[in-house]
């Protein structure tokens, strides 16, 4: 099992069982450690009480957008002629993010219990866990856990004598970042191209098979049992005002002790890097910082140091908390290459539906490639910023912004590195130096 050593600074809520010695994530182990009790608690509560508890907890979606979960659940119509569905977004693919897998691999029943509570709350009888195709091992682990839950009567019909029916299935994706966007995920789950839908209607009203659907990230569902256990208020108090609880944070990049750690919201960046992350190797300086996956605007080291890891603090600094994928870049990092690699990713993952994202990401990739190779002119630097701005806020779904934001910030904040690369360009590029795609 992939699990880094517990750090004393961690506040273990979602991962508390995982770190128990000998804990193997089986249903027996889960039940022994108080598993599925919160579901039974939810059975005693009305749906409104459960939603209120989640609202009080200040739980915000852990996939990256940070939408208040209680509010999202509240949008599901009570009465519906159509069946309702639970869908788990386990398409973890935001670069820098690898937290959901830790929960799913080590404590799969926690996710199942979260789904069960959500299903009870909105009256869903069927749910899907959409797992990215690359995580085949998690499909297997999840399927095994689901089988265990069926056998032990925690899934299926008349669950534990409550009269509730809930079926849960694992569903594999096949390689598409865009399917992390909730409406694209639903399209994919329906067997189509992972192209986002026009919204409204939102999934709460018309989601899977045009039916009311709760769709949340793995960590969001996994947080629900502990919210019921601790009570929303106490859970909220783990974090800071307006952003309750803990967040699984993935420390990646130039760090002595990278790993996935459960830290309370509002945790200081400086401590996160230097204490939890063990500092930057060789005592190097922090050049750039991505708070939560490559879609976030990049911060300079100076900008990042005084911040805390929460929604408002990051927003104030012009970035966002995102998915919890922290990327630490030290002074040796080539920011032109970083920009190129990020754009390479978005060009590869653009679904192609709308014009600005489809054309913009590839065009930007080509220019950045020339910049990196030293075949560009000063005008090209402006063009990169300009094209990224032309995508920003104008694309069909957030992928365009996700590509534009880091690019704009890198060009703006590290312009000198781009300029350094063109300094020696003697002549405009020849046709051979231009990059052909495919």
């Amino acid at each position, binding site marked *: 099992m992939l699990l880094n050593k517990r750090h004393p600074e961690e506040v273990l809520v979602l991962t508390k069982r995982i770190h128990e010695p000998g804990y193997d994530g089986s249903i027996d182990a889960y039940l022994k450690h108080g598993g599925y009790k919160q579901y039974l608690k939810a059975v005693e509560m009305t749906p409104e009480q459960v939603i209120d508890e989640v609202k009080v907890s200040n739980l915000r979606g852990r996939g990256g957008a940070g939408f208040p979960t209680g509010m999202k659940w509240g949008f599901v119509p009570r009465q519906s002629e159509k069946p309702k569905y639970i869908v788990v977004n386990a398409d973890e693919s935001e670069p820098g993010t690898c937290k959901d897998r830790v929960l799913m691999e080590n404590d799969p029943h926690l996710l199942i219990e979260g789904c069960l509570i959500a299903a009870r709350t909105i009256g869903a009888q069927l749910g899907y866990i959409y797992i990215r195709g690359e995580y085949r091992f998690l499909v297997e682990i999840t399927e095994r856990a689901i089988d265990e839950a069926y056998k032990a009567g925690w899934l299926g019909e008349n669950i534990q004598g409550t009269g509730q029916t809930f079926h849960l299935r694992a569903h594999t994706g096949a390689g598409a970042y865009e399917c992390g966007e909730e409406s694209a995920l639903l399209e994919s789950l329906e067997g189509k191209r992972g192209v986002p839908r026009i919204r409204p209607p939102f999934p709460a009203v018309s989601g899977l098979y045009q039916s009311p659907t709760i769709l949340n990230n793995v960590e969001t569902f996994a947080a629900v049992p502990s919210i019921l256990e601790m009570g929303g208020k106490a859970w909220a108090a783990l974090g800071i005002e307006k952003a309750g609880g803990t967040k699984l944070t993935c420390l990646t990049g130039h760090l002595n002790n990278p790993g996935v750690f459960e830290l309370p919201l509002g945790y200081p960046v400086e401590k996160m890097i230097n204490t939890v992350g063990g500092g930057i190797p060789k005592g190097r300086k922090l050049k750039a910082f991505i708070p939560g996956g490559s879609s976030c605007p990049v911060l300079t080291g100076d900008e990042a140091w005084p911040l805390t890891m929460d929604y408002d603090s990051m927003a104030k600094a012009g970035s966002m908390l995102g998915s919890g994928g922290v990327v630490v870049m030290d002074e040796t990092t080539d920011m032109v290459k970083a920009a190129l690699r990020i754009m390479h990713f978005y060009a590869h993952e*653009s679904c192609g539906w709308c014009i600005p994202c489809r054309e913009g990401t590839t065009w930007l990739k080509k220019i950045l490639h020339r910049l990196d190779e030293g075949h560009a002119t000063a005008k090209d630097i402006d063009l990169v910023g300009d094209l990224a701005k032309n995508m920003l806020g104008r694309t069909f779904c957030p992928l365009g912004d996700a590509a534009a934001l880091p690019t704009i910030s890198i060009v703006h904040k590290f312009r000198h590195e781009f300029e350094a690369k063109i300094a020696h360009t003697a002549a405009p590029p020849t046709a051979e130096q231009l990059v052909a795609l495919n």
Partner: protein
Amino acid sequence: MVASDVQTVTININGREIQAPSGQLLIDAAKQSGIEVPAFCYYEGMALQAACRMCLVKIEKMPKLQAACTIPVAEGMIVHTEVPEVIEARKSMLEFLLSNHPLDCPVCDKGGECELQDMTFRYGLGESRFTEIKIHTPEKQWSPVVYFDSPRCILCYRCVRVCGEGMGVHALGVVNRGVVSEIAPNLNDHLNCDECGACIDICPVGALTSGPYRYKTRPWEMNHVGTVCTHCSNGCKTTLGVKNDEIIRGNNRDRSGLNDEFLCVKGRYGWDFHRHPERLTSPLVRKDGKLVEVPWSEALKTVANRFSEIAARGGTIGVAGSNHTTNEENFFLQKFARQGLKTPHIDHHRTGDVVALLDALSGSTGSLGTAEDFLNSKAILVVGADLSQQQPFLANQIRTNVRHRQAHVYVVTPGPVREDQTAKASVRYTDAGTLDRAVAGLHDALKAEPELLIVFGDAIRGEQVKRLVEFGASFGTAVKYVCLVDHANSRGASDMGLYPHLGPGYSSVDKGMALPEMLGDATLDALWVVGSNPLKKAALASSTAFVVVQDLFLTETAQRADVVFPAAHAYEKSGTITNVCGQVQRLKPGVRTMGAKPDLEIMGLLAKEMGLKLGIWTHDALFEEIRRTVRGYNVPLPLIQTGGAASTEPVNGRIALDGRPELVVSSGDTLYTSGTLGRYSKMLNSLIESPGALYKA
């Protein structure tokens, strides 16, 4: 929708107060107020895409620009469509679009009528900042009709939608991802579809082009002639693109006529019989057993002399009229036969039992369905007809109805039909007995419908028509009927009295021989066939009969003729025709063929040569006469003259039936065949032979 149940909201666009129905899309509300919000992917009547991002507008109190194509108007909305932010966004979209667009406009078929050109001209940047290598993929041919040039494609998905939602064919999809996303056909490298060409017409750029039109002309070099398609009975308006007396294309992009933009493959591409090398351009007279070319005067004189001689001695003359010729021609032909030749023996190939329906409906009003009823009726019952194959426009009306108004469709057919896809109930039958039972089985469902349109093909004839009308009447709801017929003017031939027992307007006349009897009469002295080919399937019993044929080609019947007149086709003529629903429209000549003459002119010259006094034989004069004398045809002249379709009133009274329902036989044409015209259309034949043809002949 009734005006009273729609709430009106007030919005403000560019400082102008505008009233719009609540829920209307902003892009439509703007358009109705004369404010253009440009868009590629938005297409009225089709699913929303929000993909091209051209329609982004500024709405106050909203953080980002909004796509006007997906946002409904709301009270108090303040919208700006011409502020710098919006203008800037449009420029950037066009810049993105053009980045990988080949800019081969000088050799692109679409050049001059390309929406991307127009948008760039109006809203675009003056320069290009793209210096990379453009993505290129080679052009592909998907069928005899459809060519696809992927680099030109802007991925607006109009083609995908018109094929799927519009045609119900779903032959186009999108493959790959991101910048290499591409439209793809359903059989890997070729199409299996209706070949209707709707995808080509709806393409805003030159990505989809048509085989017949490719590299033939620049759009501005053509004249455009709006006339009526000459193939099936649906009466679609088609606008012919004409250059140097050649037809280059047919479409209905101007949305004139009852068919909006719809056309099937025959309407769009089935005009190439016009310049077929075997087209007759000179009269032929049989000399020494061989048909030889002669001057018009000689041919006319030959026929006039023989007709006069036979008529004078009281010989038997049979006349076979056409399902393709105009009302005026049909009217004049029966007049010529009955008054000039004094023969009662006149008939035509009957493709539907219109007479039985009109008789069965006697006493009721408003019971004949129109093309609009297919679009609006809440429920439709289709009996014994594959509409997508044989009545493509009517089928399209039903699909549109289902899509926008959720009409209930009931299907009773011998085999699977496309209407099954959305039908509330589909029932199969094998023979007349099971047919009756299948229809009866739908009684309760149909009775529950607030209104119903019953459409039937040649499986329902004679007494069955009567029974079907009684069945419909038993519901006590508003029920309308359409008796399906096959050819462009089958209905007109019927209305103009090309029957051995009925005159114009279904008036009773002295009974003559029906067509099979004429052919079987060994003593027949003369047979005059106008625009028809009865000898294709039957033999002529009389070996001595003098046979005169007017046609475009040397058909089986023409080969037996003693004199053949080269006739003009509908695209070379004036006059009116009546569609399957009894709607009259006017033809407009677009081209001419040296040597051929319209049938009316041939008949008129013949009358003159024979010294017959049959009145003025211009189309206008004859149409006036028809309006005055043929029951049901007193239609408003301005409507006809301006290209509209006028409904003819049903004949209301009992009609003498000849008790010969077996004479009603559908031609069995498919989407790719069209009688003689189809046989001489290279395009239609190539479709039948192409591997992807959805329908085999």
